[in-house]
């Protein structure tokens, strides 16, 4: 017994003297985290894969051990929900997709209450991030998480085709103006129709039609571009049916220029059709753009151009899709979790993460001239964030989204006329709002 005490004493002395010798205040702070383990649950893609690879650096810097789990988004949401409802306190930091934030917000610690970092210099100032992204993490004027992934549904097109003199000449002859990035929805339709050349294996518009959230986003974009929306900011139904019908009819025309299977186009179909060079123009999430620019899997790498979404009768619009990191109220290691989030959202980590396909939300990264050169879509991404709008933000969003995608699809497939689809959609939305007590 005595011997062991002696050993302990000597060891304690040694440890103390080492700390004393190093003497640096920062080192002392690190001690507060040693032995702390945080569990992080996020979505799975190239971005989070890159974060995972960088974790050892973070662990060394802070002494925090990170258990990092990633899941496809739908499963992720289920798992987060169960853990929150079961009050397990298992996870210290979780990622939430923008439209679900209102539903989950009350389980999270508001960003203003996140603790100051001990290792990093300071909290991430939300002004460093693009505004539309911060909006995506906001519910009832309170920010509930730190946005880290800035997706915005932006237009991409085949630059090489647009620059091809033969096409330029033929296009001008047919439409009477120069072939260039479409500035308006009319021009977008012209371009799509012009490049609809099935005999050459070429098609115009790349739609999103396979039943899923993507269809809702597509609908929201076209509605917004036509100057109407489904819900006002105070959650009242404000759909202008006339404009909505025009929007649906317009999209149907775009769809006429799409390849076979156009009524069942989801992400894999869209990525494939673009990568093999079938599509001319479409909306895409920046998170997927690295796939198009990757020579190993894309025949159009280096041939894709990026632009601000064209203006419709109601102006320009781009739909945001932001992932934010949030700390559950029942988390055990909130301070360490916040530290990890700050590190993830920092410029330094961001510079490494963009190389692996992160879509930045930091203004300094998006505007960095070197990065802009390397990632030609950053400028357009920034421009689209300027016209960025969120999907309706309220807890019952999923129900609205389901209605929107169903009736939009019905209109596109011809199962209903656009008028019918818009009327029934509007009716259903009002019912949902009424059931949940939003209707004034």
């Amino acid at each position, binding site marked *: 017994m005595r011997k062991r005490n002696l050993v302990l004493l000597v060891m304690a002395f040694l440890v103390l003297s080492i700390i004393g010798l190093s003497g640096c205040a920062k080192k002392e702070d690190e001690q507060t985290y040693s032995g702390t383990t945080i569990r992080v649950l996020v979505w799975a893609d190239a971005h989070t894969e890159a974060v995972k690879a960088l974790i050892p650096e973070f662990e060394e810097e802070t002494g925090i051990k990170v258990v990092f789990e990633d*899941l496809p988004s739908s499963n992720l949401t*289920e*798992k987060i929900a169960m853990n929150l409802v*079961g009050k*397990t306190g*298992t996870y210290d930091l979780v990622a939430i997709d923008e439209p679900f934030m209102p539903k989950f917000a009350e389980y999270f610690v508001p960003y203003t209450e996140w603790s100051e970092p001990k290792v990093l210099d300071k909290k991430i100032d939300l002004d460093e991030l693009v505004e539309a992204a911060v909006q995506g993490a906001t519910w009832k004027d309170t920010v509930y998480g730190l946005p880290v992934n800035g997706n915005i549904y932006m237009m991409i097109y085949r630059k090489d085709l647009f620059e091809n003199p033969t096409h330029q000449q033929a296009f001008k002859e047919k439409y009477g103006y120069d072939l260039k990035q479409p500035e308006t929805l009319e021009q977008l339709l012209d371009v799509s129709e012009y490049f609809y050349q099935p005999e050459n294996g070429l098609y115009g518009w790349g739609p999103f039609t396979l039943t899923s959230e993507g269809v809702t986003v597509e609908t929201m974009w076209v509605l917004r571009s036509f100057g109407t929306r489904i819900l006002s900011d105070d959650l009242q139904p404000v759909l202008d049916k006339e404009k909505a019908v025009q929007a649906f009819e317009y999209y149907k025309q775009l769809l006429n220029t799409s390849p076979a299977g156009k009524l069942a186009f989801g*992400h894999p179909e869209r990525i494939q059709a673009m*990568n*093999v060079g079938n599509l001319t123009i479409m909306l895409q999430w920046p998170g997927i753009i690295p796939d198009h620019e990757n020579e*190993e899997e894309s025949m159009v790498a280096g041939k894709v151009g990026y632009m601000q979404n064209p203006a419709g009768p109601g102006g320009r619009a781009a739909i945001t899709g932001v992932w934010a990191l949030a700390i559950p109220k029942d988390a055990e290691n909130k301070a360490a979790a916040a530290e990890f989030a700050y590190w993830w959202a920092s410029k330094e980590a961001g510079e490494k993460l963009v190389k692996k396909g992160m879509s930045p939300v930091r203004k300094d990264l998006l505007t960095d001239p070197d990065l802009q050169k390397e990632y030609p879509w950053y400028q357009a991404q920034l421009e689209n964030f300027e016209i960025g709008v969120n999907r309706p933000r309220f807890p019952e969003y999923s129900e609205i989204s389901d209605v929107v995608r169903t009736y939009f699809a019905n209109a596109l497939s011809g199962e209903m006329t656009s008028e019918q689809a818009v009327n029934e959609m509007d009716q259903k939305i009002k019912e949902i709002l009424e059931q949940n007590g939003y209707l004034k």
Partner: protein
Amino acid sequence: MFGFKEWSVWKKVLFYLVVLAILVVELFPIYMVVSTSLKPKIKIWTSISPFESFKPTLTNYQNILFERSFLDYLKNSGIIAIVTTIISLGLGSLAAYGFARFKFRGSGTLSLGVLVSRMIPPITLSLPIFLLVSRMGLLDTYGALILAHTSFSLPYVIWLLIPFFKGVPGAFEEAAMLDGAGRLRVFISIFLPLVAPGLVVAAIFSFIMSWNDFLYALVLTSSTIKTAPVAVSGFMGQFGPDWGMMTAAGTIILLPVFLLALLLQKYIIQGLTFGGEK
């Protein structure tokens, strides 16, 4: 059945052609999975004919085995599936015997009740099971998944085996009982060998149900004992699947079960000869 050896050559040729045709049609999607797993990424997109030639690459396999620690997930899945199968088969064959050979009050209701757990969509049960396991402090343990999987494969095993037990002629049992053998002994030394084909099928299914389970693995476990199907669904990705890795993982997952099916077959044949002796 019988008579195959006496068939004429033409009949045999025809027979083999039919067998071959069935295999080709049925295995075509599997061929798609396996060939995709060997394709370079760009080929996956551009092959219009499924038989277009390509230079096979093992990149996808290297990726998942060495960079994504897929072997660990396979090990977890394997342990859980094996234990689940053993428990399900042990308890299930006892229960099936009980249901098949005794008439007791409530046996009908009980055997139906047992099946209810398989009738209810797992989506609905996943929340309460999660809550239960979490309160028992078993989240992210082998035990939790083994219990959950067993509870779903047990009803299956029981129901699958009932007709096999019922099919055994009563005379066997009576003769053995007259010899002074106890119930349990009759069960072990007489019934089990006779229902071997059923046991094999039940073993294959309870293994596969546990091996392929996604939802419960997703809900009840985290990083410590992540299973292979959860990892595969990770390759489904945020937007589109990583075809190469998904199919490579899908192929690797098939192998152990295929070998199991191949190995266990001889017991079905054994059952066959037993049946012949009846």
